[in-house]
Structure formats: structure tokens, C-alpha cells
């Protein structure tokens, strides 16, 4: 059973990753993404085949110290029946993984840029449909 601090860590990681405040980047290994923090610790997030579900995956977080040594490793499977943001830990950790991948691969920036280009002021207005004379209700 993972302790409360790990749950807190995952909650904050999910929140800050979603806000674009965690600098995820690619690593040499495909599908493994890294974020480093100013006080000398870094983490990596990855997926691996699930140990319990034949077709499924687990999301794994590994923490490193300044020397690059592994100091902690856990997966969604270690949280047992605990909930994170009211959801199964896999869902929250998978969302973090997806955000990490998008950020590291530049997809998050690309999506924001394209939204910026497609967006027009009229999109801020409520979507009120005007009745169409051609449409006969029945």
C-alpha cells in the first residue's frame, strides 16, 4: 500500500503537469519521459505491461537523486484500493503520462498554437443557434 505522501505527490504532479508547470522531456528510451526539479531530484514516468492484467499496462514513476540513483519506484498497482482525485490511481497516472508525452513530444505546444490560430473572437460568444427557416420541425 502506497503511503499518503505518494498520493499527495501524484495529485500535485497531475495538477502541475496539467497546468504546464512540469517540464517533461524525452529521454533516450522511447516512451520514457523525465522531469527534473531544482533541489536535486528528478523523476521519470513510463508504462510497462501490467503484472495483474494480461492486456493492460501499469504506469510507473521512478524517482532519482542528484547522483542519478533510483531512490523510489512505484506504479499505479501499488496504491491498492486508494483513490486519487476520486478515481482509480491508474486513471490519474495515465493522464499524467499522456500529458508528459504530449509535453515532451511538443504536441501540447502544437495544440495550443493551432487553437490560437483557429480561434476567433466570435468563439467566445455563447453558441446560440439561430432558427433556420428551411428546417421544418416535423
Amino acid at each position, binding site marked *: 500500500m502506497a503511503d499518503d505522501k505518494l498520493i499527495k505527490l501524484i495529485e500535485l504532479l497531475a495538477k502541475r503537469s496539467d497546468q504546464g508547470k512540469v*517540464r517533461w522531456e*524525452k529521454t*533516450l528510451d522511447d516512451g520514457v519521459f523525465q522531469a527534473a526539479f*531544482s533541489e536535486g*531530484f528528478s523523476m521519470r514516468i513510463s508504462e510497462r505491461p501490467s503484472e495483474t492484467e494480461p492486456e493492460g499496462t501499469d504506469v510507473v514513476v521512478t524517482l532519482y537523486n542528484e547522483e542519478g540513483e533510483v531512490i523510489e519506484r512505484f506504479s499505479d498497482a501499488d496504491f491498492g484500493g486508494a483513490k486519487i482525485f476520486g478515481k482509480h490511481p491508474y486513471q490519474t497516472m495515465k493522464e499524467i503520462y499522456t500529458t508528459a508525452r504530449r509535453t515532451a513530444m511538443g504536441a501540447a505546444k502544437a495544440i495550443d498554437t493551432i487553437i490560437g490560430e483557429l480561434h476567433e473572437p466570435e468563439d467566445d460568444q455563447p453558441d446560440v443557434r439561430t432558427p433556420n427557416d428551411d428546417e421544418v420541425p416535423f
Partner: protein
Amino acid sequence: MHRLDIWSLLPDRYSSLKRLLVTIRSSNANLLPKHRAVLLGAIQQFSDIEKKVERALANHSSPSNVAKLNEIVSLQLDHINEILAALRQEIGIEKNGR
């Protein structure tokens, strides 16, 4: 050297680069937290690359996926250059008293 396939010289170069980055990171009190994080990330990435090259050399081969290796190195060097530019600017401002 990556492109010339001179892998045997690289582990020492990566080691020196890592030592340099560790020194910059630990000896600059003025470094912003985000720069400290970037340097730590770069140190980890170069450690990975060093290990990968060492492993390949032990097997008398070249590392697999050299393109990705080059990409990671280029990205990290870009980040480091940004930090060095920021540090130079800061030192310049201090010297000029502005």
C-alpha cells in the same frame, strides 16, 4: 564525433561535460531554480548517454538509434546554451552596475 562514429572518445567527453555541469549547478548561487532543474535534467540525460555508449563499446558495437541520441544531445545543448546566455547577461549587468 557521433556522426564520425568515433564512439571510443565519447564517454570521457560526457564525463567531463557532466562534471562541468555539476560545477556550474553547485557553484552559482544566482542560478534560478528553473535553471538548476534544467541542468540536473541535462546531467541525467548525459549520464544515460554515457552508459549507453559504454555498453555499446563493451559489445564492440555502436549505440542503437544514433539519431535519437543526437537529438537528445542537441536538445540538451540548446537548453544549456540558453542558461549560459542568461548567466552571461547577468554577469554583464553586474559588471556594468546596471
